[in-house]
């Protein structure tokens, strides 16, 4: 009886912070299709009501630059895809703060406004990995 109660309460408290899918984006945009494919997967998983988290890390943080204008490269704007994530039900966007720091990027100055990002340190990233059922790295 006690054990059953414990199980139920555990599930209840953790339900907000568990993810079906964690997509790790670690490459810069436009020089390869990696970022585009990762965001496509995020939109598709969001469409099917999976609980999705995105983690932007290393050169992947360059995907968050505001004022991207890839018309001359004949590519789709990642900035617009990132803005669409919340409508597609993607619930959590995380950025590793050290990756921003290393690249002289400032959230207020360089990063897309109007989208909420969680700034995470190394410890909270480990925690995010632990809370995610499936992890796919791009």
């Amino acid at each position, binding site marked *: 009886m006690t054990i059953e109660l414990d199980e139920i309460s555990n599930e209840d408290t953790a339900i907000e912070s568990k993810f079906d899918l964690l997509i790790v984006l670690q490459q810069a945009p436009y020089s390869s299709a990696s970022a585009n494919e990762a965001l*496509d997967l995020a939109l598709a998983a969001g*469409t099917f009501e999976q609980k999705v988290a995105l983690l932007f890390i290393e050169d992947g943080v360059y995907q968050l630059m505001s004022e991207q204008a890839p018309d001359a490269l004949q590519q789709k704007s990642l900035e617009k*895809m990132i*803005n*669409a994530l919340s*409508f597609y039900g993607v619930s959590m966007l995380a950025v590793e703060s050290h990756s921003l720091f290393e690249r002289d990027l400032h959230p207020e100055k360089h990063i897309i406004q109007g989208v909420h990002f969680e700034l995470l340190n190394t410890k909270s990233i480990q925690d995010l990995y632990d809370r995610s059922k499936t992890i796919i790295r791009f």
Partner: protein
Amino acid sequence: MDSLPERDPQGFLVNLNDWTPSVASDIANTEAITLTDAHWEVIKLLRHFYQEYELSPAMRILVKLCKEKLGDEKGNSIYLLQLFPGSPAKLASKIAGLPKPTNCL
């Protein structure tokens, strides 16, 4: 109708800039649909969505979009199937001059 701009084998516009409301009516005619205000409401919604996100929404997202902007009565697949029979997301995108939706499952 001979004036329809270039389209791909599935009937989607090759150049999205070729779209005009009269092109929309012509494409709809080739699909045996006569556009009503109810159709236009969805078409405008789709075009606005595309301007903002550069994405053609697949079915589930189209339903969600209609639900949010037009209310529960119109935000369901039965309503959309009546307007755009068969495959609403694909057909509505085609008429609205958007690319074919990906993840069209």
